[in-house]
């Protein structure tokens, strides 16, 4: 946005406006140019007295801004380097960075204030602060990921890290022995079990919250939202106290997956609820108006529309569940050997192995811990990228493949309609009487409504509408919705 500082901009503006607008407003449009005006040609202007008009820059960043930023950086670095090396007995990288940053902001404000006024200086300084905070957060994220990967690399380069377990390896053994296969197996099995239990239940519950509104569903929603506040360690403690202490089962992968389920269920319900709520009502209404029953509406319209959002919700919930240590800590046991059976004997998992390994004094175990964390991090990254590929699209926004499928389907529909018109079945005995007055139409409709399935041709009418009902509650309204949602997103962008 151009900052309207009195020194530069306003003169330009007034100059522009008097020059361009007033002659155009004063002189009537000549007859010859009227048709050109209709095709939105620029109205004639008076010949420019000062020669050709110079195109103005509309970029928001000006050269002086760049100069000021560069100059402030150099000045700040030099000043702080001078302080550190010559003037004061300071040391430490953190202090250097902080001091340099403060100095940079100071110098930058000073430089900008040389040719701007107060509000503009504040604007620039805040802009610099906001930019640096944004980059600081990104830097932290990269640091967290990079640090884990870098320190885990030492263990991960040995292939046995992924193919062996720790059952016969001593903590002090070199990194070319032992591995975390047991943790990988455990994590994958536990999360699979947890997803099997959670996803159908969560999606059914989310559909329930949206499709059968009422006092009961409102209560379920309130409780489910309250349970998102349940700390994960308490979920673990719950399963520990019920399954292991009260019921007397041993710790197992299944117990861990129960704990993860208790933790994930409210999260996925809440996210799916939001996604399904975003399905536009006119899609539902279109399907119902075309005669589809409620479950057909949900199955063929609501769920497909919300599919990418639901997938994203599930995958992000999975990422949370995979990375959570505390429920597993209490319930899985922590075996050192590969155990493929989650229902019997202890298992382990990636976050748990990480937690236990780095607490040990042996250097190699710490390296293994970082390797495990890096493996976990890669797994989460993979899930996350998957979520971005699948989702990140609002309901009704189609991927390219879906669009192609949609186009193919409507082409088929068109061919089908064409075929049907080519060999007309006399649906209502009306087809030759197309030129009759419209008054006959309801009269013909009446018997069909009265005895819907009585005669075969009449049943063909609704059937023609019904596949159209779900296939195209498909093409028709959905493209309309697409237009709507595109409008929406444009509005939001604008």
């Amino acid at each position, binding site marked *: 946005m151009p900052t309207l500082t009195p020194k530069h901009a306003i003169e330009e503006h007034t100059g522009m406006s008097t020059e361009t607008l007033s002659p155009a407003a004063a002189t009537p449009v000549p007859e010859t140019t009227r048709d050109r005006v209709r095709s939105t040609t620029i109205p004639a202007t008076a010949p420019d007295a000062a020669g050709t008009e110079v195109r103005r820059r509309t970029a928001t960043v000006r050269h002086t801004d760049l100069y000021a930023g560069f100059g402030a950086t150099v000045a700040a670095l030099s000043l702080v380097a001078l302080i550190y090396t010559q003037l004061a007995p300071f040391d430490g990288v953190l202090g250097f960075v902080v001091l340099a940053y403060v100095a940079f902001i100071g110098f930058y404000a000073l430089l900008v204030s040389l040719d701007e006024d107060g509000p503009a200086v504040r604007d620039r300084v805040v802009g610099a602060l906001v930019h640096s905070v944004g980059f600081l957060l990104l830097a932290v994220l990269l640091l967290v990921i990079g*640090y884990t990967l870098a320190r885990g690399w030492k263990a991960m380069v040995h292939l046995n890290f992924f193919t062996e377990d720790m059952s016969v390896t001593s903590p002090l053994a070199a990194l070319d022995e032992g591995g975390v296969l047991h943790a990988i197996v455990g994590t994958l099995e536990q999360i699979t079990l947890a997803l099997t239990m959670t996803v159908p239940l969560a999606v059914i519950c989310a559909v329930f919250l949206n499709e059968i509104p009422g006092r009961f569903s409102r209560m379920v929603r309130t*409780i489910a939202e309250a349970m998102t506040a349940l700390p994960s360690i308490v979920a673990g403690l719950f399963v520990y106290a019920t399954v292991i202490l009260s019921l007397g089962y041993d710790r197992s992968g299944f117990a861990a997956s129960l704990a993860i389920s208790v933790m994930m269920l409210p999260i996925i319900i809440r996210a799916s609820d939001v996604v399904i709520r975003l399905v536009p009502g006119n899609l539902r209404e279109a399907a119902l108006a075309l005669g589809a029953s409620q479950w057909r509406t949900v199955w063929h319209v609501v769920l497909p529309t919300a599919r990418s959002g639901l997938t994203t919700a599930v995958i992000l919930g999975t990422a949370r569940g995979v990375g959570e240590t505390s429920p597993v800590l209490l319930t899985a046991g922590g075996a050192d050997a590969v155990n493929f059976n989650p229902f019997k004997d202890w298992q382990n998992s990636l976050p748990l192995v990480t937690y236990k390994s780095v607490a040990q004094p042996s250097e190699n175990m710490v390296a293994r811990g970082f390797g495990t964390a890096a493996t976990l991090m890669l797994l989460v990254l993979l899930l996350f990228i998957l979520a971005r590929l699948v989702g990140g699209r609002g309901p009704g926004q189609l991927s390219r493949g879906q669009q192609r499928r949609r186009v193919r389907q409507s082409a088929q529909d068109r061919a089908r309609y064409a075929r049907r018109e080519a060999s007309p079945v006399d649906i209502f005995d009306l087809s030759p009487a197309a030129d009759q007055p419209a008054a006959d139409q309801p009269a013909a409709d009446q018997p069909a409504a009265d005895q819907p399935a009585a005669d075969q041709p009449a049943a063909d009418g609704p059937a023609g509408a019904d596949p159209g009902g779900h296939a195209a509650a498909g093409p028709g309204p959905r493209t309309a919705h697409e237009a709507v949602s595109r409008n929406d997103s444009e509005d939001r962008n604008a």
Partner: protein
Amino acid sequence: MRTLDSLSTTVPSAPDGPPDAPRPARQRRSPADLAFRGLLGGGGLVVLAVMLLVGGFLLLQAQRALDVAGWSFLTRQEWEPDAGAGHFGIAAVLTGTVLIALVAITFAVPLATGTALYISEYAPRRIKQTLISLVDLMAAVPSVVYGLWGAFLLTGNVVGLARWISTYFGWIPLFAVEGGDPRDPLASESVYTASTFIAGMVVAMMVTPVACSIMREVFSQAPAGEREGALALGATKWGMIRSVVLPFGRGGMIGGTMLGLGRALGETIAVVMIISPIFQIQPHILQLGSNSVSALIALRYGDATPIGISALFAAGLALFTMTLIVNFFASIVIARSRSGAASEA
């Protein structure tokens, strides 16, 4: 009919057959629909049952320890449930939890606000979606990874900062460090490690993305008309943000921060990896030793007797209640705010 005639729409002549009469609005559902609705209702019921089971079990288990301890559960600092009443309480761990959460919020709010403003107002449109994904990714990073980062990288680098703060601001009781002597160059620096401060910084990294995504959502909903109005009146970009975007998004900012706080309170593993647990109220956030409710549960679940388990449940219940209250107020604040109607939080 007559009113319709008065409009210039042609009304078709009345059909033959039975006269038109108001039909019952009640629809008869097909068996398939009834079964479907039954399935949905059943799903909702199961979820409700599971949730109530968890909550009820939590209450029931906590009941026993609370009966034993009475009000001393809130005031005692030590944790020896086997020694009977008056020997265990959550005063120390609850204080630790709140302090860690407050430190986390102190770091997270400026970071989240700045990043949200950057993404919604300053970032070029090309990279906006990428930035949003990165912030979401930050929320998906496992807490154990943050714990590693805090325990192995941050601890070593923050000691200097902690010493500096305690040297110059030690007169504020919060920043005082007992046993740390800034004038003694040989004094051990270990007194500055494993503190509330470092745990709070790590938790802040987990809180920031949660708060940031809600703030960004709210900022981006600030009405374009008001933005353009402010700019047209000659406001700078910052002037526009201060007079339109921030007031509009205030509810979302507060609500997002509180949701983040809810996550900060329950955070376990990262805290366990960093702090060295003590069972007394530790008001000096820079000093070695701290504790939190979830850390208590993670450390003590193994050797607990039935009364010990019950006491842990009571502590968990206190934590859950606190989180619930915070989240509840967060959703109220978000829903009441001008921007909250359309936000997802």
